[in-house]
C-alpha cells in the first residue's frame, strides 16, 4: 500500500499522520502547562503583546480575535483539539473534522508564535490541502490535493537541500558537527562520536544535502528506488528526532510520502516505465552535476567572509 496507494489512501494517511503529530504536540503542551501561567514562557498576557496589524487584513482580524481569547477558553480549545485529532485517526476523510483540526492548528500557531517550527507549518499545509481535497470529494479534487502534497514535500526537501549545498558550512562538512555540539539541537553522544571521527560529520553533512536535493527523483523513479529514498527519509527524520529533538518532523513530513508514491505511479503510468526511468537518470545526473558545481564555488576564504557571531560585551 505504501508504494502503490490510491489517492484516497494517500490523503487518509496524510491526515492520520498529522493527527498523530498534533496529539504529540498537545501531550507536550500538557507536560509544560506551568509555562502557560503568569510568568511562564507561554503566558499569553506577555506573548500576546503584539502589534494588532499584520501583513494581511484577514491576518489582522485573526490576531485581534486571538488576543481576546482568555486562558480558560484556550484550555478548552486545546481539549477540543485533542478530541478532533483523535477523531481524525478514526475518520480521516471527514472534511469538517479536517477543517476543525486546521483551524485549531492555526490557533496554536498564533498563540505560541515564539515556538513554532517547520513541523507546525507542514502540518498546517497538509491539513488545509487535505481539507480542500475532501470538501467536494470528487476524484479530481482528491487527485489535485495529492499532487499538491507531493509537490510541496518535494519542494521543501529540494529547497532545504540546495540551500545547504550552496552553503560553505555544509560544503566543508562542518555544519553537522557544529549543530550536534550545541545544547539547543545537539546530543552529547553524537557530538563525542563526531569529534572522535571527523569523517563521520563530513559524511553526514554531505549525505543530508545530497538526499534532500535528490528526493525529487522519487516522483519518477522505479518503485525499488522510491522505497530506498523513503527508507532513507524515515531514517533521516528518526535521526533528527533522536539527535536534534525534532520529533514531530517525522510525522509532519512522512505524512506526504504516500502522496509522493501515488504521484509517482501516475507519472510513470502517463510517461511509460522506460521514459520515466530515463527522466530519473537525467535528473539525477543534472542534480549531481549541480551539487558538484556548487561545491566548487566555495571560496577558500569563506570563513573570514561570513558574519561572525556577536562579540563579547565590553564594559
Amino acid at each position, binding site marked *: 500500500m505504501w508504494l502503490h496507494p490510491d489517492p484516497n489512501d494517500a490523503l487518509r494517511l496524510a491526515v492520520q499522520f498529522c493527527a498523530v503529530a498534533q496529539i*504529540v504536540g498537545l501531550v507536550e503542551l500538557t507536560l509544560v502547562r506551568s509555562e502557560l501561567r503568569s510568568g*511562564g514562557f507561554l503566558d499569553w498576557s506577555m506573548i500576546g*503583546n503584539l502589534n494588532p496589524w499584520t501583513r494581511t487584513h484577514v491576518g489582522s482580524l485573526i490576531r485581534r480575535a486571538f488576543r481576546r481569547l482568555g486562558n480558560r477558553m484556550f484550555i478548552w480549545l486545546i481539549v477540543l483539539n485533542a478530541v478532533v485529532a483523535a477523531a481524525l485517526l478514526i475518520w480521516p476523510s471527514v472534511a469538517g473534522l479536517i477543517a476543525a483540526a486546521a483551524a485549531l492548528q492555526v490557533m496554536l500557531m498564533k498563540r505560541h508564535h*515564539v515556538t513554532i517550527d*517547520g513541523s507546525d507549518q507542514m502540518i498546517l*499545509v497538509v491539513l488545509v490541502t487535505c481539507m480542500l481535497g475532501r470538501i467536494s470529494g470528487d476524484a479530481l479534487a482528491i487527485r489535485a490535493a495529492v499532487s499538491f502534497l507531493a509537490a510541496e514535500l518535494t519542494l521543501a*526537501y529540494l529547497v532545504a537541500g540546495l540551500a545547504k549545498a550552496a552553503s560553505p558550512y555544509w560544503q566543508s562538512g562542518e555544519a553537522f558537527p557544529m549543530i550536534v555540539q550545541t545544547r539547543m539541537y545537539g546530543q552529547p553522544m553524537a557530538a563525542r562520536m563526531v569529534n572522535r571521527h571527523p569523517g563521520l560529520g563530513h559524511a553526514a553533512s554531505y549525505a543530508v544535502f545530497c538526499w534532500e536535493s535528490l528526493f525529487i527523483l522519487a516522483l519518477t523513479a522505479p518503485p525499488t528506488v522510491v522505497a530506498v529514498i523513503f527508507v532513507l527519509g524515515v531514517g533521516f527524520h528518526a535521526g533528527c528526532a533522536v539527535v536534534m529533538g525534532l520529533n514531530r518532523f517525522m510525522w509532519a513530513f512522512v505524512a506526504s510520502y504516500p502522496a509522493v508514491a501515488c504521484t509517482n505511479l501516475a507519472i510513470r503510468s502517463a510517461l511509460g516505465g522506460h521514459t520515466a526511468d530515463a527522466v530519473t537518470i537525467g535528473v539525477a545526473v543534472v542534480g549531481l552535476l549541480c551539487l558538484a558545481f556548487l561545491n566548487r564555488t566555495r571560496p577558500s576564504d569563506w570563513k573570514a567572509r561570513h558574519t561572525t557571531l556577536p562579540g563579547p560585551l565590553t564594559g
Partner: protein
Amino acid sequence: MTVVVQLPFKRCKRIRRYDPVGHLLPGWNFFAPKPLRADFAVWYRFWEFYDNDHGEVLKAGSSPWLEVAGIEERRITEAIVNPGRYTRKTIFTCCNQIIMINRAVLLHGKNGKSDAPAGFPPDAIIMSLPYLLLVTKVSSLCKHAVAVQFRIDVIQHERETLHAYTVFRSAVHRVLPDASRVGGGGHVAAS
C-alpha cells in the same frame, strides 16, 4: 506562490502579504545557509534587599549568577515526546531577537545616528517582547527578590571545549512583591 517565496529575493517574499494566516507560505531552508553555530544561555541574579532607603541595590549584594533552566541535556525519550522544546525555542528566539535589535541599534550609533535613529525608539530593546518575556520569566523565578537582572551568554563549541562570553546584560529591574506581582517592573538605580 510557494515556489516563488523560496527565492532569496525581497520582492519574492512580498507574496506573503497574500497569505491570510501567515503560515501557508513557509520557507523551507532549514539550518541553511548558516547552521546553528553556538548556543545561548540566559543567566540571572537577584537581590533580596535594598541597600538604602532610596530603593537602590549594590552589585556586591546580589546572588550568584544562576542559569535559567530549560536547555539541559536532552534525554532519549525526547525523540518521541519533547516538552522541553517550548522552553528551548523560546530562550533561543528571545536571545536571538534581543541580539539582533541590539546590534541594529549599536550599528546606527556607530554610524553617527545616535540621536533616536528612524525606526529605533530609545527603549527599543527594553520594551521589545523578547526582553519583556525574559525579564518576566526571571522575575517569576525569584519569588522573594526585590530586583533582578539577566544576561545572555553565547557558548561556542570547538571540539570538546566550550568558550562562553556575555553578549548582552539587561538593566536591573525592580520586582513587585509577590501579592501584587503581574510581571517585571521598572528600573532601579543600578550601582
